[in-house]
């Protein structure tokens, strides 16, 4: 994705979406306030990243009009969607958005094709349905009911349906978390393809660093309802200071002590690796922590695999 788009966000030039919200939320850890001020550039693929309960889903729901914040303002492409001071609040029906729900929300009384056709606006040209069925490789499934489809297939139908009205803004609420890694990669490709094909502005909620690095060009990190950082994915995830040549993000699976040293088992993508660490390094590390595995002064050998 082009540098220009990112700069636009940074420089604050006429963004597609400006929002400024305040909404008290009740999370598992008690009361908190979602307090977000954000400019989103047209065409960007933005990820909301952060621990569960940080307010990511609430932010999406507010944007879609499924939730009304106590106070706030949303302007999209010059159109006011929400302005609590002036009493403006467009219902979800009047906001041009596509929303991919965590549970897909497919209509089980309709076939795949009917799900897509139902989404058509009055008088809208039906060719978009055929086009999306083709693009998302749903041709063979068009007359099936959603309950007979696999998770990945359902997800593709839901994505296609969200795009029928050709919205300006596509929102994805952790759409890939329930899929296995092959499905996930396939869907990521589909997502990138539609993002480009339809010139969408996409907002994704995700926990998965690898996914974020692959898909998005801007990350907004939320914690306790506040934006605690934003930037390009690789800047966010490399934690800015390391200048390693070789670096991965992984998850600590297990830490075992062997004599004076520690062996840390880390899951990177689908690979489990073991890394030797000393007392100082494992201090404060527990299983489940997200870590950066980096190496300096290290010359990897690259060999083509058969």
């Amino acid at each position: 994705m082009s540098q220009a788009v990112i700069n636009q966000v940074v420089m604050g030039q006429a963004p597609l979406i400006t929002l400024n919200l305040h909404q008290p939320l009740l999370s598992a850890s008690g009361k908190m306030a979602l307090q977000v001020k954000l400019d989103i550039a047209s065409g960007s693929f933005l990820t909301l990243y952060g621990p569960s309960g940080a307010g990511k889903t609430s932010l999406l729901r507010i944007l879609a009009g499924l939730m009304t914040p106590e106070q706030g303002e949303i302007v999209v492409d010059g159109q006011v969607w929400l302005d609590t001071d002036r009493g403006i609040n467009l219902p979800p029906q009047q906001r041009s958005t596509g929303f991919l729900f965590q549970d897909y929300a497919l209509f089980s009384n309709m076939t795949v094709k009917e799900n897509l056709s139902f989404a058509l606006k009055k008088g809208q040209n039906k060719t978009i349905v055929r086009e999306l069925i083709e693009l998302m490789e749903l041709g063979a499934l068009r007359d099936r009911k959603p309950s007979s489809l696999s998770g990945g297939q359902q997800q593709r139908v839901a994505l296609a349906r969200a795009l029928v009205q050709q919205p300006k803004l596509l929102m994805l609420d952790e759409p890939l978390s329930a899929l296995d890694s092959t499905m996930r990669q396939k869907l990521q490709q589909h997502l990138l393809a539609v993002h480009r094909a339809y010139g969408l502005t996409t907002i994704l909620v995700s926990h998965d660093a690898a996914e974020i690095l692959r898909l998005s060009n801007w990350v907004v990190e939320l914690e306790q309802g506040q934006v605690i950082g934003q930037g390009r994915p690789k800047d966010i995830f490399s934690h800015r200071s390391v200048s390693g040549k070789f670096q991965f993000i992984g998850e600590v699976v297990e830490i075992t002590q062997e004599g004076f040293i520690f062996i840390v088992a880390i899951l990177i993508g689908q690979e489990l690796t073991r890394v030797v660490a000393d007392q100082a390094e494992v201090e404060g590390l527990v299983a489940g922590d997200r870590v950066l595995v980096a190496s300096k002064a290290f010359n990897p050998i690259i060999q083509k695999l058969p």
Partner: protein
Amino acid sequence: MPDWDPLQLTLRLACMTTLLLGVISIPLAYWLAYSQARLKPVVEAIVSLPLVLPPTVLGFYLLLIFSPAKGLGQWLDHWLGLRLVFSFEGLVLASVLSSLPFMVHPIQAGLANLSPSLSEAAYVLGKSKTTTLFKVLLPNIKPSLLTGLVLTFAHTIGEFGVVLMIGGNIPGETRVAAIALYDEVEALRYDLAHTYSLILVALSFTILLSVYLLNGNHFPRRLS
């Protein structure tokens, strides 16, 4: 041979009641399933009252309210020519009220069990609440709708107390099968009583059986 009129009347009453309740209960159940109004518990309690009250209580109050001698009954009689005591119309009204929970509860439960994202997805796709209700929500709770319809039908067939109170025992007008049966027993005509009873048992059993067969596991195992 038994008189077929009471049986015909029973079926007519059950059909009318089921049809009317189907229309009334959908908006009511929708409101009960989604509303957060303060008044909701009150409405829920009123809807459920016929489950616990003796039907005669309901019948008694309806008799007082619609008595053509005074108040609302007088007004209806005078201005609309509608007399709701000792008439078929009155029976329909009484049955609608006394079967209300049997229709409302399954629909309300069905709607409440649907994932909220289903209607939200339809709203985001620009669909109105009405379109969403009829094209998405109701088709997804068909088993609940069927349960409501059948329970209402079957319950109306079994109506006795409320019918006796407000309808009395007028042949061809309010003398339904359950009343006719009672009548025959009082007159010690046990053979006719047997016939009515057997027909009612067979009818109710067939209705319930067909629903269980059609609906598989969706139909509640406990009817209450």
